């Protein structure tokens, strides 16, 4: 008897999702050290992604007033990225950084050699600041 496969949209039934290789496809396109394309950024200056088995460790460094600010590392599983053409497909990551006063929900993907980080920042300190989103671009230094 064929098991029932639940779905809430047709893409939940995409045959590629049943291929375990999809999860780590082209992971090397994401791993490594990445620098912000904007040298004057007031956001994330640098991102380092490493792989440990099926896990990915994401470390970012924020621009500080005097020195860079190292955020606590986040460990995540990769997400299959089905949106690109087959040859361009690489995993995406969705690390969440708990900074105490703020939580940054992010997603990271690579598009034509550019690492894109999108952040949804939520303040938890009652400071009155608006929760805000931001997007930054990174290149791989030689």
């Amino acid at each position, binding site marked *: 008897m064929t*098991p029932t*496969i*639940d*779905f*809430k*949209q*047709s*893409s*939940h*039934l*995409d045959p590629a*999702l*049943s*291929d*375990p290789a*999809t*999860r780590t496809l082209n992971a090397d396109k994401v791993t490594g050290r990445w620098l912000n394309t904007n040298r004057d950024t*007031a*956001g*994330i200056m640098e991102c380092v992604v490493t792989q440990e088995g099926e896990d990915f460790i994401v470390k970012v460094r*924020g*621009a*500080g*007033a005097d020195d860079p*600010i190292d*955020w606590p590392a986040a460990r995540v*599983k990769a*997400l*299959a*990225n*089905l*949106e690109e053409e087959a040859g361009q497909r690489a995993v*995406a990551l*969705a690390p969440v*950084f708990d*900074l*105490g*006063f*703020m939580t*940054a*929900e992010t*997603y990271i*993907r690579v598009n034509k050699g550019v690492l894109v980080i*999108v952040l*949804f*920042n*939520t*303040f938890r*300190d009652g*400071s*009155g*600041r*608006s*929760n*805000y*989103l*931001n*997007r930054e671009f990174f290149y791989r230094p030689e």
Partner: protein
Amino acid sequence: MQFAQISDLVEVDTATLASLDPAALPGTWLNSNPDTTGIARLIISEHDGALSLRVYAVGPDGLIEWDAAEVKVFSSGPAVRMAAGFTSLHDFGFAETRLQGMIMKGLLVLAQFHHFKDDSQRVDYFVREYFALEHWRN
């Protein structure tokens, strides 16, 4: 004031503190891709200052309406009081989908994170789709 990047560091006048104006979000958002196998349209509604989201996804036999979900609103900066995006969470039991929407020049870029909780062995996946706000201006 604590910060993790300089962009977090802003002066906030707590005496004139206002909630985020969500005006950019409500309406019917249509997927730019008529052949999508994901979400066909979103309807965001405002009631008493709170936003709710209805999602209509493409299924093999027609549109599938997801249960309504609350929307968490984000601006484009910590001192900005205009909405520029949102997040929502949808728990289907067998799977959980997190949506992150960002408005850019009138286009809603919607990132979708699908996490399977059943024993189907499907891999979690990510996809982005683009949506335009339906309007009647010619």
